[in-house]
């Protein structure tokens, strides 16, 4: 079958989709967007969390056909999504654009070159990358180890901060309880979300003062 849907703001068309394929499979194997992860493929770990019409869902539990005509945001589009939300005062619909070429520049390349090591300053690696506040906070707080849970956690945490900008620790734990992490013991993930909330708060105060 053919599925038409919007991914990171760009209209997409997936051909020859077998009816049993999940949204996760189509994103990873047909769209060249492997950022959403395949840790359990049974809806238990949250590593494949994406926004579907604004709602965080496990992409592994969504049949590809179900996204016909709908809007999906993945971790690859999170930075732009957050940027446009900040500029336009929220974009919960999920229709916050990433051009196709950009959306596909993450296609995994087995012959990927060397990693540039940062100097420890904000941003770590690629100095050109524009990150959303939650992405930057995950790096700064040391919330990333193996990183396999990270994309799902970023989508979930970003969504929580969208409707609850000043969460308590109990709020954070509740909002992220569907996302398993095996490396960190979650302490640095809590730090990262607190950090993103505090920076957002500070930015809000500064804007309010202007």
């Amino acid at each position, binding site marked *: 079958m053919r599925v038409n849907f919007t991914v990171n703001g760009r209209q997409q068309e997936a051909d020859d989709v077998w009816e049993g394929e999940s949204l996760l499979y189509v994103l990873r194997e047909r769209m060249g967007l492997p*950022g959403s992860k395949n840790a359990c493929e049974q809806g238990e*770990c949250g590593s494949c969390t994406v926004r579907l019409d604004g709602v965080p869902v496990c992409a592994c539990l969504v049949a590809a056909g179900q996204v016909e005509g709908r809007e999906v945001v993945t971790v690859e589009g999170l930075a732009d999504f957050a940027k446009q939300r900040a500029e336009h005062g929220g974009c919960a619909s999920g229709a916050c654009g990433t051009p196709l070429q950009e959306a596909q520049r*993450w296609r*995994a390349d087995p012959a990927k070159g060397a990693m540039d090591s940062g100097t420890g300053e904000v941003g770590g*690696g690629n100095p050109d990358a524009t990150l959303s506040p939650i992405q930057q906070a995950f790096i700064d707080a040391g919330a990333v180890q*193996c990183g396999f849970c*990270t994309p799902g956690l970023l989508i979930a945490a970003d969504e929580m901060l969208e409707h609850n900008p000043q969460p308590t620790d109990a709020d954070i734990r*509740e909002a992220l309880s569907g996302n398993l992490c*095996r490396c960190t*013991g979650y302490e640095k993930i809590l730090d990262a979300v607190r950090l993103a909330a505090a920076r957002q708060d500070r930015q809000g105060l500064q804007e309010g003062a202007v």
Partner: protein
Amino acid sequence: MGSTRTTGVPTKLTQGSQTKGGIGESTLRPDGTLKVTGEFAYSSDMWHEDMLWGQTLRSTVAHAEIVSIDTSEALAQSGVYAVLTYDDLPAEMKKYGLELQDTPVLAHGKVRHHGEPVALVAADHPETARRAAAKIKIEYRELPLVTDEASATAPGAVLVHEGRDDEYIKHVPHPNIVHRQPIIRGDADEAAKKADVVVRGEYTFGMQDQAFLGPESGLAVPAEDGGVDLYVATQWLHSDLEQIAPVLGLPEEKVRMTLSGVGGAFGGREDISMQIHACLLALRTGKPVKIVYNRFESFFGHVHRHPAKLYYEHGATRDGKLTHMRCRIVLDGGAYASASPAVVGNASSLSVGPYVIDDVDIEAIALYTNNPPCGAMRGFGAVQACFAYEAQMDKLAAKLGMDPVELRQLNAMEQGTLLPTGQVVDSPAPVAEILRRVKSRPLPPERQWESSEGADVRQLPGGLSNTTHGEGVVRGVGYAVGIKNVGFSEGFDDYSTAKVRMEVINGEPVATVHTAMAEVGQGGVTVHAQIARTELGVTQVTIHPADTQVGSAGSSSASRQTYVTGGAVKNSCELVREKVLELGRRKFGTYHPAWATAELRLEGGKVVTDGGEVLGDLVDVLEDESVEVEAEWRHRPTEPFDLRTGQGNGHVQYSFAAHRAVVEVDTELGLVKVIELACAQDVGKALNPLSVLGQIQGGTTQGLGVAVMEEIIVDPKTAKVKNPSFTDYLIPTILDTPTIPVDVLELADEHAPYGLRGIGEAPTLSSTPAVLAAIRNATGLELNRTPVRPEHLTGTA
């Protein structure tokens, strides 16, 4: 490979305190941005034009003869390119294994455990491959099962492996025992006479899964030269290579491995999983083949932590001095050996814990059974022992009427203590101090779930299930401490290799570090860049992808990579530095006498004297030359343990952590909420303090998991796994995990690079017994098994 080995003696230097981003700073991960944008390419993200999907067919029974295999219907499916069984294996060598080559690439004649690979399919879509695999017809004739020590060693017991000819068969008492390591020191019988109190216990440790999130996966691409390029997630590229090449019938240089992104490991990637299978399918079909396990298959695709039965006896005088210890540790290795021999060595040599006991009688064995194969997992034999000896310490303290922490401190080992193996602990061992630190920390407030708005159920046992508002909830506090060896022990040649290059790029000096170290999330790549900055005085460091084009780095396990590959990077940097200074002397030595007379260091991109005078820019010294060194580096040698007495200098370094657990238990429903899990650990030197905390908190949480929730349940009647999913095998969520305050000590080990200590595993040891101790403290129950389930707390087991 054009490697350069040098023997030059480095100039005496006081190197590196001034360069930004060096060791001791919490620099950020070089792969952080890639990982938060979804750009980081994990092994399951690999993609190649025209690639096929591989699928493994696994046995549905635990122990059976294979009467027949019929692949014809599977082969006839549209979209199927190949179906392989044992008969299709191309080389003489058809087995592999970490320590013993006892594991068939595909089952031959019989299967020995549930989920053993029997056949492979390659097809153009993963679902086509799955459906074709389901059409392979296998007829089994079931055999009697070996599931525990009794059935393994009973007269006439069926042998899991017939005709063993490995090095261990000579000294084991039964062919269903992989390895046995006794340790005898002093005279336990005589010393027992001095004991005023004796405590005995029989303990059970459940089977834990590493549960790394990134499933086993990779891509094999056939090459024009008849070889294969393999992109895969592993812990040790070169060990994989040594096992893969012979069964493919290829020389090692024709199997080129590159590490792809690794989604966690924790021991579970030390063994081969899909590597050989993907290569076989790629070579057979001439097309790239990707294999990605789903979570169900992942539970069968790697070894687990050995479940264990542990029998302990401790004696003490009335004033609390330990007199003797006897113990027997029975580890279930399952159907194939994997790392069982080394796990036995660890379990026995660390079975006394971090305590001084002169008279001991120790025996550890690993069984061959028809249960799932078990091997490496974080803590590696020391975890099971720590659970038991710490339970014994609490039992002993109760019997003596002593404080459990004081009893531990009274008997705590320290630098200079003699281990039961006769080895001297020759670096700091602050066991009493880390216990003091966790104990002196203020306790979290009582009834913290209570507020003016009523009970916050999220902070109570049962959580959002809303099972209590505080009724029936009692609090308990428990302590534990452990000892873990660092690095490979028992005489293993534990080395690593680093290639370091220095050159000028875009007008700036840049160092490139190339090792085969598997970055599995621990942050080795971060630390390598820090070491290069410290040693070479540069800002820009490039970390080359890990592959087999450079010498072995050894395994990312045994808490060893920062020590050993970190040591190798440091060593190669020192050799590069010496060459750079030679170059400087040749070019500029005549202009300034200090080139010949002063102690020199590299700092901020310059050559500087110990007095701080700048002699020149690295850019001018190097110009268009690049200086490169590839060199091996090894830690102090160790010795094997004597097979009868267990004596020998078997370990190179130790790591110590202590925990205090605070729990609240709903005694009516048997639900446990861990409120806080405080840790103190000596790390020698924190090369990256932020990463150190991440390791300690992550390790602590895996220990918590096996205390209250994580267990692979194997049906004793069928030896089949009952819960291979994240629905039924539970790992801690953010709601299950408490605050983990950490106290880091830095007492340098003078034998190790920068004084550092391997840190990854120690926190996994003491976390579990501390939680168990706290639950015992809350409930008054004896609790001799882990994990604890609700029925163990409510008396309904």
